[in-house]
């Protein structure tokens, strides 16, 4: 549960709002209803994030949207301690992680706003947490799984 001492990321400035396209609308709208939507390739069986016309693993045009489990493992992370851009300059320090989803082939960069930077570890298990961006859309953050 959110700790009142943790920074508030709920305010999304207009210029940070997602601008969905035909190609990626499903991702942003999925996050708006608390689902992590990624693409699955029926030819090679692997997954990818972000949305593309072709499978980046095998090159086939055999992709379909699926809802990921939201579970993953931190491949790497950093603690952002300097960012000159509002509102991030008011949120520092915060963790940004590269997460390998349990769905093979899909990796994404996500903020971990609720994680104490001192607790961040490579290999830690994490799960998706969703943050609203307006009425219909959302961002995908991650939180520690336990």
């Amino acid at each position, binding site marked *: 549960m959110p700790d009142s001492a943790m920074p508030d990321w709920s305010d*999304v400035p207009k*210029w*940070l709002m*997602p*601008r969905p396209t035909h190609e*990626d609308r499903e991702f942003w709208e999925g996050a708006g209803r608390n689902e992590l939507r990624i693409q699955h390739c029926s030819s090679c069986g692997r997954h990818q*994030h*972000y949305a593309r016309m072709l499978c980046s693993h095998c090159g086939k045009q055999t992709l379909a949207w699926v809802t990921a489990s939201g579970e993953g493992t931190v*491949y*790497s*992370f*950093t*603690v*952002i*301690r*300097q*960012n*000159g*851009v509002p509102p*991030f300059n008011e*949120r520092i320090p*915060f963790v*940004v*992680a*590269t997460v390998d989803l349990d769905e093979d082939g899909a*990796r*994404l*960069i*996500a*903020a971990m706003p609720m994680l104490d*930077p001192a607790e961040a570890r*490579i*290999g830690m298990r994490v799960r998706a947490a969703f943050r609203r*961006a307006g009425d219909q859309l959302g*961002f995908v953050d991650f939180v520690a799984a336990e």
Partner: protein
Amino acid sequence: MQQRVCIVGVGLSDGPVTPELSGVMLEAQSFRRALDDAGLEKDDISGLASAGYGGMHEVALAEYLGLAPRWLESSSVGGSSFEFHALHAYRAIQNGDVDTVAIVYGNNQLSASGRTLGTGGGGGGGRGGMALPLPMAYEFPTGLTLVGAYAMAAQRHMYEYGTKPEQLASIAVQTREHAGRNPRAMYRDPITVADVMSSRLVADPLHKLDCCVISDGGCCVIMTTEERARSLPHRPVYVRGGAGGTTHHSIAAMPDMTRTAAAVSGPRAFAEAGITPTDVDVFAMYDSFTYTVLVVLEDLGFAPKGEGGAFITDNGGNLRLGGALPTNTDGGGLSCTHPGMRGLFLLCEATRQLRGEAGDSQVAGAEIAVAHGSGGWLSTQGTVVLGTEGA
């Protein structure tokens, strides 16, 4: 028959802080100085290569300089663009498509934009009403910065191989030692590993002193045939081989954050040049961050994968003069100059070393130099091997 190809002129603009000069003025100044260095005039230039931050940059530059080149090159792959330019010019001159090429770059980034490049957000993504190019649209709202992207890669290397922040810091310390001998360098006072470690953490594990400077500056390198080079004033520096490649654009798509495309470009370039890593006397390496040096040094085979940290600190510091691999003898991006993109300055310093013109930072008897550019988010890697005539 293929021509051998030489670097015959190099020019550096004023720097590292030039509020009175625009980017194109810095380009023009370095172009003029390279012509003078080469003993050429502008009408001798039949090919032009450049990269900026907008389209048709090299065309606008040709007009500004009063050139009508019949060979144009504008690979724009980040800071390593200029290694790609040199490589493509090398092939074109080799094959007789073009005779004499000027590669030019200039930027007044410090004076125009201040010191915000690495932490301005978005890893280079846009602001305001700009649509963000994929995949930056996903990364920008996380608060990730350019420095943060490199930091994640460094963190992974530390995790897999036990690399220490102090070993990264030593790169900055040894580079500063070189800068101390260069009156043109932005920062020249000696620093210690403790100084780096106690400088502000920007994005863990990278400290302020693990990051390159932001400066103004311009550079020009002129390449031509061996035949023409023989009639020009300086001892020609020969292009011996080169290769480039990419593995990803955004850091999230980097398949293995401890291995770059240099692991492919390096061996190909070295094979063409007929050398092994131990033959290299001078290394001009794109040091955007200390980690960039470490990972590429391993990828090029100067140290086995995972042992770069020990290599850097062994022998009292292998990147120093007298070390196994004197690196960035002008003070590098970490201490000397980094005007947005640094790739061309690497070719310039490598050439000065092989001519024996590097002054107090001269590597005695240098015959083989490697200039290696890394662009984007460790995304694009370009290796160019240079040598003296007899090497």
